[in-house]
């Protein structure tokens, strides 16, 4: 048996010793061994029982995931609360595929999807609508409160929960997210502690206009890697309350910091909860400084490699919404597309365009007249993960444009700013 370095309660030690069965013992061993690497003195209680898992896809090669889930199911083990999970990979109704692509998706790549969803249901999945990378949004409802301790994964969700909601969660890996939700305990280190939430970087924004969230996040992520940045100068555009606009901006900004770097927590001066309470006291004395102006934003934007096989050709597919769009973003994108088409005198977008949002937000949006306006433009709304779509080697022939830096990082998709995407799809500018 693994000899833990941290202090365990009698109950925790008994689990480790196998009193609740061999699978629970292995789960405890994993979590304790993980915490010991970081010098965690003990396990602390998860106070927001609903977990969030990063692994939503029944991709065949993830044999360790399915085999662990099988052991969990066989032992009748469930999470303390329910859990949400990242988006599904397939939606043939709204993201049309040809026969060959369907064959590869359903029979080869995601052949284990149905089986894996059944495994998750047995382990505590919330419901059939629980598939979103932005499950913290109010419509989905897995929304922790300030100070809550979580056992989540999904880099964009963890950074949002820590930074915007003021919850406490380490950048857990897939599997560790589930294990903490089963045990109801996580190791006490890193972002769980006050000290771990202090900023090692002071980032000063000197741009003339609000920088594109996805490029600003990318620049900061690549610079600070896994450290905590304290960002000064954004509140003059975003205000001092987390309203719908700020929510969307910070979601996209955070996702880029986490995927282009490894940021798990950021503070925005005058806006995010801890920055509002503690201000620049959150910045460590030995913090480094990074000044971002318009030239730096442009430098970072120009540095992205183009991975298309034929970069001289126009794009033929556009994904908007990675992470999933907020309700406000569904509305504002629709308004902008409708207005843009009016300007170019067209009825429909000139390139196949797909917007992605959480199933619960899609349901809410579909109940509004604006959804019909969106449909009339030819744009489709789905709840899949665009990254899962691009995993199919047959989709490599698509020249995908996206305003998501996360999708760019993990696929051959080419990044473009929101306005460039808009101009392209309404036929104003050919890309």
């Amino acid at each position, binding site marked *: 048996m693994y000899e833990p370095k941290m202090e365990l309660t009698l109950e925790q030690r008994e689990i480790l010793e196998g009193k609740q069965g061999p699978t629970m013992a*292995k789960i405890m*061993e*994993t979590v304790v*061994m*993980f915490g010991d*690497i*970081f010098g965690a003195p003990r396990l602390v209680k998860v106070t927001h029982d609903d977990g969030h898992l*990063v*692994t939503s896809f029944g*991709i065949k*090669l*993830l*044999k*360790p*995931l399915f085999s*662990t889930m099988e052991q969990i199911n066989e032992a009748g083990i469930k999470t303390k609360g329910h859990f949400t999970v990242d988006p599904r990979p397939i939606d043939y109704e709204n993201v049309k595929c040809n026969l060959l692509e369907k064959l590869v998706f359903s029979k080869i*790549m995601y052949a284990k999807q149905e089986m894996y969803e059944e495994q998750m249901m047995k382990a505590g999945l919330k419901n059939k609508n629980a598939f979103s990378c932005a499950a913290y949004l109010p419509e989905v409802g897995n929304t922790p409160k300030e100070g809550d301790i979580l056992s989540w*994964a*999904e*880099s964009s969700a*963890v950074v949002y929960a820590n930074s915007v909601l003021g919850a406490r969660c*380490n*950048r*857990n*890996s*897939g*599997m*560790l*997210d589930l294990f903490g939700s089963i045990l109801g305990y996580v190791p006490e280190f*890193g972002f769980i502690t006050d000290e771990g939430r202090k900023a090692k970087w002071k980032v000063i924004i000197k741009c003339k206009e609000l920088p594109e969230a996805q490029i600003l996040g990318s620049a900061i*992520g*690549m610079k600070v*890697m*896994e450290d905590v940045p304290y960002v000064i100068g954004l509140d003059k555009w975003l205000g001092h309350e987390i309203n719908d606009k700020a929510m969307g901006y910070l979601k996209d900004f955070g996702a880029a910091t*986490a*995927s*282009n*770097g*490894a940021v798990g927590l950021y503070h925005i001066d005058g806006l995010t909860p801890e920055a509002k309470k503690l201000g620049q006291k959150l910045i460590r004395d030995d913090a480094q400084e990074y000044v971002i102006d318009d030239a730096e934003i442009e430098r970072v934007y120009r540095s992205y*490699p183009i*991975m298309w096989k034929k970069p001289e050709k126009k794009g033929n597919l556009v994904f908007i919404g990675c992470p999933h769009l907020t309700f406000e973003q569904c509305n504002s994108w629709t308004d902008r597309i409708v207005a843009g088409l009016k300007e170019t005198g067209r009825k429909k977008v000139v390139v196949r365009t797909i917007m992605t949002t959480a199933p619960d937000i899609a349901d809410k949006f579909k109940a509004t007249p604006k959804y019909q306006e969106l449909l009339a433009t030819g744009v489709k709304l789905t709840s899949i993960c665009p990254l899962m779509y691009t*995993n199919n*080697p047959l989709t490599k022939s698509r020249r995908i444009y996206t305003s998501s830096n996360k999708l760019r*990082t*993990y696929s051959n998709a080419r990044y473009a700013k929101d306005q460039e995407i808009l101009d392209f799809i309404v036929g104003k500018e050919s890309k």
Partner: protein
Amino acid sequence: MKEFKGRVIAGGAWKGEAAVSHQGFNTLASFQKSALKNAKQVYVSDQNNKDLFGVNITGKALCLPITIGSTTGGLVIQTVCQMGIAPSCFLFSESIDSLAASGIVLAKVWENSDVIAIDRLGKEFLDTVKTGDQIEVKEDGTVIIL
């Protein structure tokens, strides 16, 4: 010959070739393509990684500051260890990050993997070691660039 001493996360003795990333190693982006193809070797597919893009890292000592990117990272490390296409050693110049640590622990506990991981080797280690160098790793966390 230059010697460095780090902290043992998962111990073992090993000799072989180094593959060096001076920037954060994006686990998902790097392993994704080879793993999806069920390939026998991993050629790094992270377009942002100027040092290792297109380099074969299977069975080598991956020398890196930390890992970055998606929180699938740990599960990806576990999976490539289970598939037998992982690097033999992960040699971190900084303190190991939470995703890489998860992956090493998952590989050890659930796959009985013999993957080696040593962290805190220091900035000088990463400044010194070059892709293609022969290196020796000892049980006590000593890493020698031969």
